[in-house]
């Protein structure tokens, strides 16, 4: 049961594996830039997953051309819309994370979050 399903849905499987990679990078990396890269991998794979789910082989984007009106000629446009919205969200959080990273780097001259924490403890603010 699991085998053939996994094989036909290999796109989704790849997306989920990549999601795990991004997730663990965001969680475990010490370097802030690497964390942000992990964040981007994680978000992008969700869009890959949605695109895989939304696509039906042999059909086109739902834009009426040449007067073709049947529903069966087109794919579902909602996942693509969700991807667009998601991209906007992930761009803004990435920008926010990068700006925070710049601030921390200017102050402490390092990108290592643990080292920054250690230094803060020493400062005893």
């Amino acid at each position, binding site marked *: 049961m699991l085998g053939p399903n996994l094989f036909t849905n290999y796109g989704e499987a790849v997306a989920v594996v990549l999601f795990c990679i991004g*997730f663990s990078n*965001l969680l475990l990396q010490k370097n802030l830039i690497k964390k942000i890269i992990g964040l981007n991998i994680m978000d992008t794979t969700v869009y890959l*997953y949605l695109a895989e789910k939304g696509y039906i082989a042999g059909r086109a984007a739902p834009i009426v051309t040449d007067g073709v009106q049947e529903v069966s000629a087109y794919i579902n446009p909602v996942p693509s819309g969700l991807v667009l919205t998601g991209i906007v969200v992930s761009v803004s959080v990435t920008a926010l994370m990068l700006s925070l*990273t710049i601030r*921390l780097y200017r102050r402490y001259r390092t990108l290592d979050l643990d080292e920054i924490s250690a230094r803060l403890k020493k400062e005893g603010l």
Partner: protein
Amino acid sequence: MRFVQNFPFFSIILSMFSGIISSVLPARAARWLNTALIVTVGAMSAALLWFLTGTQEAYVYWMGHFPAPWGNEIRAGVLEAGMALFFCVIMLLSMLGGEKKLLGEVEYSKHNLYYILVDLLLSSLLALVYTNDLFTAYVFVEINTIAACGLIMIRQNGRTIEAAVRYMIMSLLGSGLFLLGLCTLYDLTGHLLMSNIKEAVAQLAEQQAYTVPLMTTIGLISVGLAIKSALFPFHTWLPDAYGYSTVSSAAMLSSLVSKGYIFLLIKIFYRVIGFDIITESKVINVLFVFGLMGMVFGSLSAIRENDIRRMISYSSVAQIGYIYMGFGLGTEIGMVASVFHILSHAATKSLLFISAIGLTDVSRGSRKFQDLTGAGYRNKLAGVAFTVGSLSMVGVPMFSGFVSKLLFMEASLGHAVKMFPALIVLALSTILNAIYFMKTVIRIYVPDRRPDCGIITGKDEKLYAATLVCFIVLNVALGMLSEPIVQWIRTGLSMFG
């Protein structure tokens, strides 16, 4: 369609536009706009609550003119309207109570940014409360996160920026999981509106189809929102974020931001998955266990802490644990207890944060316990307020915390297996709460003449004093008038169905 039914939409859009307008206003005007906004939204929510109590019927509001499976929708019942009102009250009091500190701690040029963030926070909270569409909920969850991050780092020092980074990382992990769960749910059901998803999920459950993906989805969504609301093992960002940000931010973060996510989770339980499927799933057992652990370990960390603000923050971890324990019981009364605890914790925690500021102010700004000795005499009102908050957190009758503890006890009695662990941990956690809160209260009332510290009376800081009095009244009201409030929660939850 009555005019009052437009109010949820009006309140969301008003707070959004106020945020946009504030960006070109000077700080003073932005402050007035912010106060006026919170009061207006609160009044509108009160009117809506009154209207809905009359009709006893939730209604759905179309955003745009598309019917159910296509258009976006807002939905309002008594619980939503009441929550919106409550959030407005807490937000107004937190803003007024922390206003003086804000002037001292944040550069004046950044003040209108602060009000923009608060406006956006309010709009995203209202949207989370009212929305009937899961993807809209996701977008507003992210707006809420970004606004909260801004609230943490508006006070610029190394600590707050580091706390903001840690907060963002944890939040983004949570929203990643939430988003993936949402997409899977969309694949399984083909809908994004909560009521449509619920029908489809009920069908799937009936046919016993896709059980594994469905459970995975429930797990992803619950864990995602649990991470965002700082359930026990994911709480590492919390003490820094609450402990070092300016006090209004700390009060709002602890009592509003995390509660917004929890309220969304309750909505998902009732309106998306269906309460029966949730109670049968194993996911609530996980929430139950982590809730119990949070209740103990949060309190233990609070006992070890030597900094009053961080101690209060760690106590939040324990209180969030209570709420998730209520979910984990998987009974109707457990949910009622959790919702009541959302109210009670929000009212108490913001009171504690605001009153702690009054105590540290009369101890030369130090937050260490040894310097706080006798602070209750130097700022009498803050001392009384802190004592009221502590008693409420410990669960002394007359105050709100007592009622929620009583409800939790009652709820755990209704469950055969989970009764013993829940009762034992409740008792243990109450003792631990009493240890650290009573330790602090005794400390601030040890007579100690310190001529080097100033004395602040209510006359010196009228606004601050008035806020504290309002908070105390709110706390006692929640404790004494619990009957109608519990009744309101019950009606609200039954309207979810």
